[in-house]
């Protein structure tokens, strides 16, 4: 377009900002605002979870026993490690260490894949047992607990929504990785890396709550 990017020393930034730092601070605030709406985006599911838990505690407890906490714990560790590699990647960009940035981005992507693979096994295992969301629920082991199906509805909704966020994060990371390999990021300009990092830590943050409430404390 007609806007030529302005230059600030050797850093370029869009014409409507005063400086590259101004652009960086504004972009970061944009991400924080985005994360604020993400919190609200997840909130109805948490409200629903606690509503039905309050109304049917026994069913909730019985249903939670069917989840394998080891799988959940494994995924928790995976995500925490991916947060670590993400933080290291950002550090790599901040210190103009291209190798550190690229390696850690790849590691993060790998861990994200690992998370999804574990999730895949969990889901298919449940499907084999006939544990679907309430309307399609055919599992018979919880006959006395009719509200257990709602537990799994919410389980699928929460983990599914979280899974979509993981996928979205991976897509963004691929794009950042491509640019990183081209050497576009350095100590002067690493806005996309930092922003992706913020988002990815948020995805971890959600899981930090999902793990105990779904797998351990049901």
């Amino acid at each position, binding site marked *: 377009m007609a806007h030529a990017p302005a230059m600030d020393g050797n850093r370029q930034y869009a014409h409507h900002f005063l400086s590259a730092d101004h652009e960086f*601070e504004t972009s970061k605030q944009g991400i924080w605002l985005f994360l604020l709406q993400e*919190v*609200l985006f997840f909130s109805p599911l948490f409200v629903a979870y606690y509503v039905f838990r309050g109304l049917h505690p026994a069913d909730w407890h019985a249903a939670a026993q069917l989840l394998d906490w080891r799988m959940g*714990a494994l995924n928790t560790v995976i995500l925490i490690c991916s947060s670590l590699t993400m933080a290291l990647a950002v*550090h790599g960009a901040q210190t103009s260490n291209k190798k550190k940035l690229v390696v850690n981005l790849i590691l993060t992507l790998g861990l994200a894949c690992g998370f999804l693979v574990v999730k895949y096994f969990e889901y298919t295992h449940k499907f084999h047992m006939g544990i679907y969301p309430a309307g399609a629920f055919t599992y018979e082991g919880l006959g006395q607990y009719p509200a257990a199906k709602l537990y799994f509805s919410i389980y699928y909704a929460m983990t599914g929504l979280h899974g979509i966020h993981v996928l979205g994060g991976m897509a963004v990371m691929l794009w950042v990785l491509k640019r990183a390999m081209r050497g576009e990021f350095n100590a002067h300009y690493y806005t996309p890396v930092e922003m992706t990092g913020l988002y990815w*830590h*948020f995805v971890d943050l959600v899981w930090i709550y999902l793990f105990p409430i779904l797998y*351990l404390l049901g």
Partner: protein
Amino acid sequence: MAEKHGNHHKHHILAPKIIWTVWALLLIGTALTVGATHFHFGAVNYVIGILIATIKAALVVTFFMGLKYDSNENRVIFLTSFVFVAIFFVLTMSDLFFRGPVEFDNGRFLAAQEAHAAAQSSDPWISTPELVAKGKELYAAQCVVCHGVNGKGDGPAAGALNPKPRNFTAQAGWVNGRKPSEIFGSLTKGLNAMPSFATSPAPDRWALAHYVSTLGPSVLKDSPEDLKKVGAGNASGGGGGEKTLPIDLAIEIMSSEG
């Protein structure tokens, strides 16, 4: 711009040492959460679980996401979201967990009905305009076929019967007499071609008797002895009490309806 934007503003760079430490703390937190659930402290388990999760989340937000080093603006922005989630929770729960009891708090309709029936049937052998009116209705439904609309014994079915149905308007010919108690007796036991009406509730039979006796040339009254003969006149008389259906019949009807 309102804020200062120096060209050499320093970005905060998180030291690797902190990164690794936070990572280690997060792993320890996870282990603690899992471990804690193997002890059964009851409701405290829940609090512990959520508390550890919150500490972990705080670590992520503070260090990995760098809110510790960020502007107040961004801190306010992110923390605002939790304020509104809290509002969302509290006000929704103020409905869901505080719905008061709903009661079928009385069988008053039935009670009123029973009380009424009791009042009605307490002395059914004493004629009242209401009993006569009720008797008239019953008569119209059950008796006109033989005894005729005006009680002259000339109903549509009368022709086929022998002996002919009683003409209530005539003084003569009454087999059992025409006092209400005597008519009640005839209804209860049956007479010639007329079947017993004992399956009808006693008050209905009394009501019919009172009505029929008004059809005649003069209304006779029962003496206490007359009433005694048909078992009426005492508190335990032939009135009421058979209003509800037998249980087994009710079950039968219900199950036949599916």
